[in-house]
C-alpha cells in the first residue's frame, strides 16, 4: 500500500503535458547524433581512434568490452546512425533508442582516451529517453496510429534536471584558483588565437581571458535558474546560444554546442513549438489520471541521487582532482585543465635486465597524449607491459613509470611515484597513494631539474 505522499507523487509525475517540446528534443537529438556518426566516419576516426590502435585502453571493470572482429566497428557505427535516424523520425522508437544507447555506450566503453563529458551526456540522455514515450508526438508512429498523445510531465523534468546538472556542476567546478585567479587554461588557449577573424586581437589580451573565465563561470552557475524563470528564460537561452556558439567557434568541441543548444530548449514551456507555429499539429494536454508505476518514483529518485553524488565524489579524494584525475570523470568538469605530460616506462626483470618502453612505440598519438596525464591509464598500461614481458621473457618483472605532467601553464613535475611497481598496483575505488602531490598554486614550480 502506497503512502498518500507517494501516491500524490505518482500522480504528479504522470501529469500530462503537451508533447511538442519533447518531440522537438527527440528529433533534434536524433538528427545531431546522426550528424555526429557521419562526421566521425567521414573524418576517418573509426579507423584511427578505434581500429588502428594495437591496444585499446579499457575502463576498470570493463576489460571484457572488446572490439568486434575485422571491420565490425563500421557495422556498429552504421547501427548507431540508423538508430539515431529512427529516433529522429519516431519509428520503432523504443527499440531504436535502446539500440542507440547500447551501441553508443559500447563504443564509448571500448577506449578510455576518447572519454568526453559530452559523450557521457549523450549516453545519459539516451538512457533517460529509453524510459520516455517520446514518439507520441510528431513521429511516424503517431502518424500511423492517427493520434498524438500527451506525455507525462516527469519526462520534461528529468531532461531539465540532466541538462541542468551539466551547467551547474560545470559552473561549480570553475570556482577554483586557476580558473578565477590565473584565468587558466583560457589564458593559454586564447593567447594563440590572435588570428581569429575580427576579434582575434581581443582574444590575445590577458584581460579577455579573465573576462571570459569569470563570465563563463557566472554563465554556468546562473543559466539554469534563469532558464527556470519564465520572464528571464528567452534572454537566458539567447545567452546560452551565444555562449555555445562562441565556444564552438573557438575550440574544437564538435557537435556538443548544438547538443546543448537543442537540449536547453526543454526548459521552455512544453508547447513552445506549437506556439511558435500554429500550423504544427500537437497535442494539447488532456485529462490523464493514471499514475506512474509504483517503482517509478524510486527509480527516478535513485537516478537523481546518483547524478548529484557522482560529480561531488571528487571531494572524497585527497588533493586536487585536476591533478590526480580521481573523481574527475562523470562529473561535468569540462574545459578546466590544459595538461600535458611525458612518460616512459622502465621494465626491470628480476634477473637484472632492464627495458625502457616508450608508449608511443605502440600506442597512437591520442592514446599517448591522454595516457601521459592520466594516472589510471598509466596503471593499465603498466599491467599490459608486465603481462607481455613476463610471458615473452619468462621472468618476473617490475614496471615503473617516469612520468611528468604540466598543468595550466605551470612547469612539469612528477605525476607518479617512480618507485612504485605499477604493474602490481590494483585498481581500487579509494585514493591512489602512488600519485605524486600536485604542483603549488602559484605559476611555475621553480627551475627544471
Amino acid at each position, binding site marked *: 500500500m502506497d503512502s498518500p505522499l507517494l501516491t500524490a507523487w505518482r500522480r504528479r509525475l504522470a501529469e500530462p503535458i503537451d508533447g511538442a517540446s519533447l518531440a522537438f528534443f527527440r528529433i533534434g537529438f536524433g538528427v545531431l547524433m546522426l550528424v555526429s556518426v557521419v562526421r566521425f566516419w567521414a573524418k576517418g*576516426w573509426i579507423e584511427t*581512434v578505434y581500429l588502428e590502435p594495437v591496444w585499446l585502453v579499457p575502463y576498470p571493470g570493463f576489460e571484457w568490452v572488446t572490439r568486434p572482429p575485422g571491420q565490425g566497428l563500421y557495422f556498429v557505427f552504421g547501427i548507431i546512425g540508423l538508430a539515431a535516424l529512427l529516433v529522429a523520425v519516431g519509428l520503432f522508437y523504443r527499440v531504436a533508442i535502446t539500440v542507440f544507447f547500447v551501441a553508443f555506450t559500447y563504443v564509448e566503453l571500448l577506449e578510455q582516451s*576518447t572519454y*568526453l*563529458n*559530452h559523450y557521457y551526456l549523450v549516453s545519459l540522455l539516451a538512457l533517460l529517453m529509453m524510459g520516455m514515450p517520446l514518439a507520441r508526438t510528431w513521429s511516424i508512429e503517431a502518424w500511423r496510429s492517427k493520434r498524438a498523445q500527451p506525455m507525462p510531465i516527469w519526462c520534461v523534468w528529468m531532461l531539465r534536471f540532466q541538462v541542468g546538472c*551539466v*551547467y551547474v556542476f*560545470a559552473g561549480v567546478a570553475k570556482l577554483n584558483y586557476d580558473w578565477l585567479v590565473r584565468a587558466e*587554461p583560457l589564458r*593559454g*588557449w586564447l*593567447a*594563440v*588565437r*590572435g*588570428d581569429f577573424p*575580427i576579434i*582575434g*586581437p581581443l582574444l*590575445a*589580451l590577458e584581460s579577455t581571458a579573465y573576462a571570459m573565465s569569470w563570465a563563463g563561470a557566472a554563465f554556468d552557475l546562473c543559466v539554469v535558474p534563469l532558464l527556470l524563470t519564465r520572464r528571464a528564460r528567452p534572454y537566458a537561452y539567447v545567452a546560452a546560444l551565444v555562449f555555445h556558439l562562441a*565556444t564552438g567557434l573557438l*575550440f*574544437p*568541441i*564538435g557537435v*556538443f*554546442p548544438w547538443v*546543448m543548444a537543442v537540449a536547453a530548449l526543454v526548459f521552455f514551456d512544453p508547447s513552445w513549438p506549437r506556439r511558435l507555429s500554429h500550423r504544427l499539429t500537437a497535442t494539447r494536454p488532456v485529462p490523464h489520471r493514471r499514475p506512474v508505476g509504483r517503482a517509478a518514483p524510486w527509480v527516478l529518485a535513485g537516478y537523481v541521487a546518483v547524478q548529484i553524488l557522482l560529480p561531488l565524489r571528487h571531494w572524497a579524494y585527497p588533493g586536487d582532482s585536476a591533478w590526480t584525475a580521481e573523481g574527475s570523470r562523470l562529473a561535468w568538469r*569540462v*574545459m578546466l585543465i*590544459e*595538461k*600535458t*605530460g*611525458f612518460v616512459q616506462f622502465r621494465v626491470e626483470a628480476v634477473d*637484472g*635486465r*632492464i*627495458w*625502457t618502453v*616508450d608508449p*608511443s612505440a605502440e600506442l*597512437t*598519438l*591520442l592514446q599517448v*597524449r591522454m595516457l*601521459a596525464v592520466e594516472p589510471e591509464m598509466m596503471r593499465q598500461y603498466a599491467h599490459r607491459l608486465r603481462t607481455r614481458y613476463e610471458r615473452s621473457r619468462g621472468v618476473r618483472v617490475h614496471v615503473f613509470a617516469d612520468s*611528468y*605532467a*604540466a598543468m595550466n*601553464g*605551470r*612547469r*612539469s613535475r612528477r605525476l607518479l611515484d617512480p618507485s612504485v611497481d605499477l604493474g602490481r598496483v590494483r585498481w581500487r575505488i579509494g585514493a591512489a597513494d602512488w600519485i605524486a602531490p600536485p604542483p603549488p598554486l602559484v605559476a*611555475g614550480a621553480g*627551475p*627544471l*631539474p
Partner: protein
Amino acid sequence: MYRLTRRDGLRALAAALVTAGCSTDSEPPFDAPRIVVRDTASNVLLPSIEAFGTAASELKSRLAQLYAAPSAELLVVARDAWRRCRAAWRQTSVMHSFGPIYDGRLEAKIDFWPVRVTSVDTAIADATADLTGADVYAQGATVQGLPALEYVLFGDRSDSEQVDYLKTVVTGVSPCAYAVRVGEALVLAARDCADGWSTFGVEFQRAGKGSKVYARSLDALNALLNGIIAVTQRMTDLKLGKPLGSTSGGTPAPDLLESRFADNMAADLLSDVASVRSAYLGRRDERAGRGIADLVKDRDAALDRDVQRLLDTADAKLEALPRPATEVIGSQPGSFEVALGALTDVRRVFTADVVGVLGGTVSISDNDGD
C-alpha cells in the same frame, strides 16, 4: 542624458580592436603565433632545405672526382663532403615529420637506418654500367641514401684498403661508380624536398591567412612543435636508446649505432639538436626573426631559459661522448647514458612544458567543452 546608440557600440568595439591590435615593445603582438610560423619558415625551414640541396650537390661532385681519380686524398675530401651533407640533412630533422618530406616518404630514401650492408653489396654486384642516379632513386630505400654512401666511403677497412675497394670491380660496377649514382640519387631526393617545400612552404607561411593547409596559425605552430618533439623522441628512443640496449634488456647493441662506419653518431645527434634549437629560436645563421622561444618567453621567461640551458647541456654531453662509439658504448656506457638523460630532459621540456604553455596539442579528436 546621453543615450548610447548602436553606432557608439560599434565605435567602442572598433576602438577596442585597434587598441588590442597595437602592441607596445613589452607586449607580444596579438598575432604572435602567425609571425613565429612565418619567420621560422623563412629563416629556418626553407634555408635548411636549401642548405641540404647545396650540400648534396657538393657531395655528388666530390664523388665524381673520387671516381675519376681514386686516391686517399680525394677519399678524405669525399668523406668530408659526406659529413657536411649529413649535418645539413640532419639540420632539417624537425621537418621530417610533416610536410613534403613526410608525405613523400623522402626520409627513407635519404636516411634509411640502420644500413643494410648486404643490400648495398648486392646492389653494387647487380649494377650495370648504364645505371643512372634516377634508376637508383627509383629503387628501394635500403640501397641508397647517406647510410649507403657512408658504408661505401668509410667501410671498416684502412684508408688505403678502402681506396682499393672503391675502384675494384668484382661483379657489376665498382663501389665508387655505384657511389656516384647514389650521390646523383641523393641530389634528386634533395630536389624533391626543395620542390615540395617551395609549394608547401608558402602554405605554411600563410597559416591562418588563407593557407590551404593550415587554417589557423596554431595548426602550423602545432606541426612545428610536434616536429621538434618527434626529433627528440627519435634521438632518445631510437638513435641513442636502442644502441644502449633499451630494447635488448640493457645490453648495448653497437650494430644499431647510427653512422657507425664514420663514427659520426654524436655529430648526427648534435645536428638534430641544432635543428631543434633553430626551430625553437626561429634563428639560423644570420637570419633571425620571432621564434617559438619568443612565445614561451612571453608566457614564462624562466622556462625559455631552462629550454636553452637543457639544449646546451645536451650539446655538451654529446660532445663529451668517447670515441669510437662502436668500441666504447659497451665498455663505457655511462657517458652515453648521461647523454641520453640530457636528451630525455630536452624531450620532456618540449613535450610537457613548452606544449603546455603554448596551448598546443597533439590531439586528433574533439576536446571536451561546455
